[in-house]
């Protein structure tokens, strides 16, 4: 590696890019317009849309009929897949919270020990109350006091408010039905299951309220806020915009190949890797500049069109590190596309369509939890998903450094692999056709 050659290439690329003010404006202005448009378009659907299915981390510390009934209801709904072990190890309260906090699963349910006992106690109290009202003496022994069942729900911090509310209400309804079934069973009323669904049950509500605790996960320092279209779209489309750098960069490579500059560059003593690195460094820095410009513009412009303000819950430093990693991966992918293809049209079509596919799979268009399970697995292979996940940690969840570095490493490794393939391809081409 030759520092002089790398620096010269960085300077050359800077001059070339800044000599094209139209192209430069496109690279900054178009993503900003895209973000505003997408945030506006998705604002309504984000508030209303029905989610198709969820994986729920399931921790039943009670091991009594309450957990079994609740589990059966979850499974019967067809919208939930219950996860009670991870990598072959049974999930505990702590590991479940960690999995949800890290975004591995969107929701966790914890049934604490003693919940069923509390439910029985409540039923007994209710029977005594009804008996007392009809003039009969209290005959069932009960424990004093009314405690919550303490069933705990914990959500991925990026889960939308509507999803949280719908799931909480659904579980309340399930618990109400279980309690009512239990009550009718104790009172020896047959066919209670079907009848209980029709009952208003207002008189029991006072006893059944506050069964659920919703626990906010994420960093203690992170303020809670509603996951809005802005909170999803700005990081998502910044990743998309940065990855679109592959179009000018691959075009730059192809232009050099077609217009003869590559021959002169190859004629200079030293490794071609120096020239590639110069381009990678410059365009990665430009990607960072693009990120900061879009971020500032989003915070200033989005409120002007009645959209929520983008919340920044961390210092800017991790966001810059994340953006640099994303830029590096995107630029290296651009180098690969520019190396593999021989015409601008080939590179542009392949590059843009690949980005659109990877972004669709990677959670840019819609959150990946609404994708079918098989696609969720594929999504994990998309570099855009790694980038988005990094930004979601920075903007929403809060950073856990080991996870942050893991995703950053994935992006860097992806970039390095792209560079290695490009270099090998360049050498092979040179052997075959000379340039």
């Amino acid at each position, binding site marked *: 590696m*030759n520092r*002089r*050659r790398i*620096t*010269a*290439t960085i*300077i*050359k690329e800077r*001059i*070339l890019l800044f*000599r*094209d003010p139209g192209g430069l404006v496109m690279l900054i202005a178009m993503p900003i317009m895209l973000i505003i448009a997408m945030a506006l378009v998705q604002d309504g659907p984000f508030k209303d849309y029905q989610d198709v299915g969820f994986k729920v981390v399931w921790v039943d510390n009670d091991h009594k009929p309450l957990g079994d009934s609740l589990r059966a209801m979850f499974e019967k709904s067809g919208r939930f897949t219950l996860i009670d072990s991870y990598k072959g190890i049974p999930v505990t309260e702590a590991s479940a919270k960690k999995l949800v906090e890290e975004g591995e699963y969107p929701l966790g349910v914890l049934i604490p020990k003693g919940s069923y006992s509390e439910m029985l106690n409540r039923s007994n109290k209710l029977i005594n109350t009804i008996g007392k009202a009809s003039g009969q003496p209290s005959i069932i022994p009960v424990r004093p006091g009314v405690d919550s069942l303490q069933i705990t729900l914990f959500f991925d911090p990026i889960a939308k408010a509507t999803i949280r509310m719908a799931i909480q209400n659904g579980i309340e309804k399930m618990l109400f039905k279980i309690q009512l079934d239990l009550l009718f069973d104790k009172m020896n009323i047959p066919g209670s299951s079907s009848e209980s669904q029709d009952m208003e049950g207002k008189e029991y509500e006072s006893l059944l309220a506050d069964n659920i605790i919703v626990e906010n996960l994420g960093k203690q320092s992170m303020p809670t806020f509603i996951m809005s279209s802005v909170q999803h779209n700005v990081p998502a489309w910044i990743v998309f915009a940065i990855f679109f750098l592959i179009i000018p960069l691959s075009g730059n490579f192809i232009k050099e190949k077609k*217009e*003869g*500059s*590559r*021959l*002169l*560059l*190859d*004629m*200079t*003593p*030293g490794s071609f890797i120096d*020239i590639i690195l110069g381009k990678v460094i410059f365009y990665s820095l430009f990607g960072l500049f693009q990120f900061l410009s879009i971020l500032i513009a989003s915070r200033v412009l989005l409120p002007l069109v009645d959209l929520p303000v983008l919340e920044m819950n961390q210092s800017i430093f991790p966001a810059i590190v994340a953006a640099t990693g994303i830029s590096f991966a995107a630029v290296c992918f651009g180098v690969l596309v520019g190396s593999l293809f021989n015409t601008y049209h080939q590179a542009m079509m392949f590059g843009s369509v690949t980005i659109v596919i990877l972004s669709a799979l990677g959670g840019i268009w819609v959150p990946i939890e609404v994708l079918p399970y098989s696609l969720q697995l594929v999504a994990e292979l998309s570099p855009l998903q790694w980038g988005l996940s990094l930004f979601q940690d920075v903007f929403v969840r809060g950073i856990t450094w080991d996870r942050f570095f893991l995703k950053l490493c994935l992006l860097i490794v992806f970039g390095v692999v792209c560079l290695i393939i490009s270099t090998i391809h360049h050498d092979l081409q*040179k*052997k*075959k*056709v*000379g*340039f």
Partner: protein
Amino acid sequence: MDGIQISQISKKYNGQFDFAVNRIDLTIPAGTITGLLGPNGAGKTTLVLMICGLLKPDSGQICIEKDGKRSDIDKRFIGFVPQQDGLFGELTLQENLWYYGRLYGLEKVYIQQRIQDLVNIFQLTAHLSKRVKHLSGGMNRRANILVALLHSPEILILDEPTAGVDIHSRALIHEVIRELNSQGKTILYTSHLLAEAQELCQIISIMDYGRMILTGNPEALLKKHEMSNLEGLFIALTGKAVRD
């Protein structure tokens, strides 16, 4: 330096039936201007690219002989002017020269001095701050030669340097080539312009169908084949059929 030795060099491109260059032996003596001539598709550019180290031969060897010792081709000793202009159109001439100078590993002060000297020789001083895309064809060609000379190479290889160039630029390029040769530089030069080759070169080599069919001093070759000019000799050797 004693020159470039080419032994039994061959190259066949993928998917092609015929060899682009087929078992060529050639010696380019140091300090000479050697003209590499041949019809279109004869294999001149392929041979030149292999000499420059830009294309790997399938077989054979190319080496530089210096003080009786042979070594592989070293790009530091070679300046190459390709057929196609390779400067960045959006950069000014000065920026292009700086960039290539740095890629050659030259010091800033040296580049500055070298640029001043060379732009004077090539009469491009007034055009240093112009973007290359705004230069005329002749200026562009001269600028490409200038880049190839930045690092003061001992060998200069020019692939059709005067193709499509106006008369004044061509005369200037000839003058520079002669001047460089008088300083002891070795020059390999491909061209379709036979009169130009006859006038400039001490040695000419004629290629056809990837093979070397004739090498020698132009006057001696004409005498031997009883021809009055190179064009007649060229047609006699390669036939009248049009090659595209």
